[in-house]
């Protein structure tokens, strides 16, 4: 276990995540003919929330204090399993654990909604649970496809000279679509639907707990958006990247992040919110695509 890279990832997670969210807000605003906030707005939001008072809802237990922090730490832990700006990852064999942490953090978020004893929180929490259960399969399958392509469960940037072909492309597209659904923005923010549920699970939280939860959600999105880079670095010929920090990796990372954010903003600006049943049909389609990708990886010779 490489403690230095681990520490780097943790710091990066906390600093970069609000920036990425700010970038998304700017792009969405421009698509809507608005000026939009500055890119650093999300930093300011979190800083402001940290200065406010924590008011727990009446009758809620200690879970209300723990769960927001847990959301944050689980999301940050997701970064501990992958390589972000370096070629090696801090931990060996973290691919499946990444998925497990993604699952766990979704459920902790839902539990936070229920723990607040507010009917909107409970309804939002239950929607989040159903949503997570529906969208996880496609993420699981597409990430597993990536693992099979790379030939190991360690999600690092060691280039392996994979040939560019249809299986890789389909797998990448399937993953992008699943992550779009996981991100919790329109059209998929069924759980948090502001105009329907007044914020769902987030409703009863304010001040530092809300800051922790929001930051946790930002970090989770960033972690999920960090995966497409692996599809790209796998294409490079073996041995072309050195150890440690790598400019190529950083460049590819930024490019893939930008792609993800643009996709999310486009989806956000061009469609209304899905209801649960409609969302589930979309997820079923994405799952089918991910399964096709997995089958292709095995069916097409030389894809691995």
């Amino acid at each position: 276990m490489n403690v230095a890279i681990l520490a780097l990832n943790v710091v990066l997670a906390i600093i970069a995540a609000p920036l990425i969210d700010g970038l998304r807000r700017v792009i969405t605003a421009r698509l809507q003919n608005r000026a939009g906030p500055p890119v650093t707005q999300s930093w300011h939001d979190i800083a402001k929330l940290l200065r406010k008072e924590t008011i727990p809802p009446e009758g809620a237990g200690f879970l209300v204090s723990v769960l927001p922090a847990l959301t944050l730490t689980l999301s940050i832990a997701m970064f501990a399993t992958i390589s972000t700006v370096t070629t090696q990852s801090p931990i060996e064999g973290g691919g499946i654990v990444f998925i497990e942490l993604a699952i766990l953090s979704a459920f902790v978020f839902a539990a936070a909604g229920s723990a607040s004893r507010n009917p909107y929180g409970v309804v939002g929490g239950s929607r989040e649970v159903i949503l997570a259960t529906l969208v996880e399969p496609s993420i699981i399958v597409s990430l597993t496809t990536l693992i099979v392509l790379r030939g190991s469960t360690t999600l690092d940037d060691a280039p392996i000279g994979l040939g560019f072909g249809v299986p890789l492309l389909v797998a990448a597209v399937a993953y992008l679509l699943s992550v779009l659904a996981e991100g919790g923005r329109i059209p998929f923010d069924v759980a948090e639907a502001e105009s329907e549920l007044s914020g769902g699970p987030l409703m009863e939280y304010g001040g530092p707990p809300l800051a922790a939860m929001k930051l946790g959600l930002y970090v989770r999105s960033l972690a999920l958006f960090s995966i497409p880079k692996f599809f790209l670095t796998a294409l490079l010929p073996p041995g072309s990247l050195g150890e440690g920090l790598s400019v190529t990796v950083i460049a590819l990372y930024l490019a893939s992040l930008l792609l993800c954010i643009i996709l999310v903003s486009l989806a956000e600006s061009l469609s209304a919110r899905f209801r649960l049943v409609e969302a589930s049909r979309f997820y079923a389609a994405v799952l089918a695509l991910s399964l096709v990708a997995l089958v292709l990886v095995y069916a097409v010779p030389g894809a691995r």
Partner: protein
Amino acid sequence: MKNEIVDALSERFPGSIRGVTELRENLTLLELGKEDVPRVVEYALGSLGGTHMTMAGTDYTASLDQYVIDHVLGWYDRGLLLVLRTRVQKGDESFPSVTPLAPCADWYEREVKESLGLTPVGHPNPRKLLLSDDWPDDLFPMRKGFKNEAPPPLRRDAGFTFNAPEDAGMFNIVPYGPYHFAIHEPIYFRFHVDGERIASVDLRAGFNHRGLEKIAETRMTYETVPFIAERVCGICGSVHAEAYTQALERAAGFEPPERAKWIRVAILEMERIHSHLLWLGVASHMVGFDSGLMQFWRVRDRIMFLAELLTGNRKQYGMIVPGGVRRDIREDKRETALREVSTILREYEELFDAALRLGTLKARLEGVGPLSEADARRLSVTGPLARASGVSMDARRDYPYEAYGQLEFETPVRGEGDVLARTIVRAYDTFESIKLVKQALENLPGGPVHAPIEYIPPDVTSMGLVEGPRGTDVHYLITGGEDTVYRWRVRAPTYANLPAAPLMLRGQTLADASVIIGSIDPCISCAERVIVVDEASGRQRLVSGDELRGWRA
């Protein structure tokens, strides 16, 4: 032909009708005994196909020892209005309730009960409507004896009983309001939900009740009432000012100058465009289509600029007064305005095409919150809500006022009765309004914009009907002496439309609740109109936080 309805009623209920008076062309008054009213109203609305317009109770105990209750019924297809007047003697303050036979009278009777103290016998649901929970039960604000000079002693044990379905334990209670992101004014809905499905709805209104009718009776003159009428609503103020002014001018037998009529049309249609653009944005936001919100409101800003150009105000124009309008439109401003209207039309058309082609948006609106034509007629709903359910009613076309008789426009009607139908009706209404504004500005006749009203006779019952963005706004007026109104009853369209909300919400999902309530385009402030102000000392009393918490009881 005009007396067809009266003839039919006399034939059906011989002996019940005690007197027939022609108040005005197309406005007839029938005197009835209070026992006969329920059946007559039921017959008139059901078999004769009428619409319930309003009901008002007036306190005549000082002069006649009685209360007067007027039901106003209308027939849009014939352009007829009928007032059914009945009297309740002081000492026997009750009357048989109309609601079991005609559910559209529900809210009116509850209001008469709490504001005048006349009990509707047999009303299934006689809870407080507009007054707050801690208002004392024995204090009736609309009686002439009540002087709104000081806050009354409030009850300490206040509460409100909510109706619940029989198997209430099976459902989750989801409170909706009074503060909720989706509704822009305070109102409280209580949903009983089964998972995501709404099984049952109850509502509590009255948070915006301000007492404007009482203020008009006690502290305003004929000239100043239009300005408070405008404050009934934030976005359809001119509609109320116009309705009041219409009622007053008809009572006085007064015709405003031609130019004033055309300017009034331009203003009313501008307001309609403004309201519909706002609504289209809000509806988009409620289903999660934020781009729609931003873009529709961008176009809405142009309308507000147009309004500022012509009236000096972006929203509450303050233009319509008895006798005409307050300001004239200069020639150069008229040209700029016409250009602006063309731009608005162009941008709105683009936006409308783009938005309504969006599959996800349509999917969220189609089939949601249906209201059948039968229900729409039974509840006497009005405006786009009715027109989307197949009921063709438009006060501009059927009860022509101002210059509408000389203008060309259409009234879109659709039959599906769901939220998408209401959206399309409003969207096409906007197109028609833009056409009307253009016609009005292009063909503005010359002449003065205001003429004084010489004399307003007292004790005249009069009606003003205006088609607002949300439906027909009905103002009922009884003129008094000394330059004040004796009774002024505002029936905003939302007052008639809100009772349909529980019906439309049942069986729908929680996700759609916001957009269904929004599709009525509720203007809650219009629906509730009373406050109490400490007039004697002239200061406003600030209520401390502790008191507020105590009042929550």
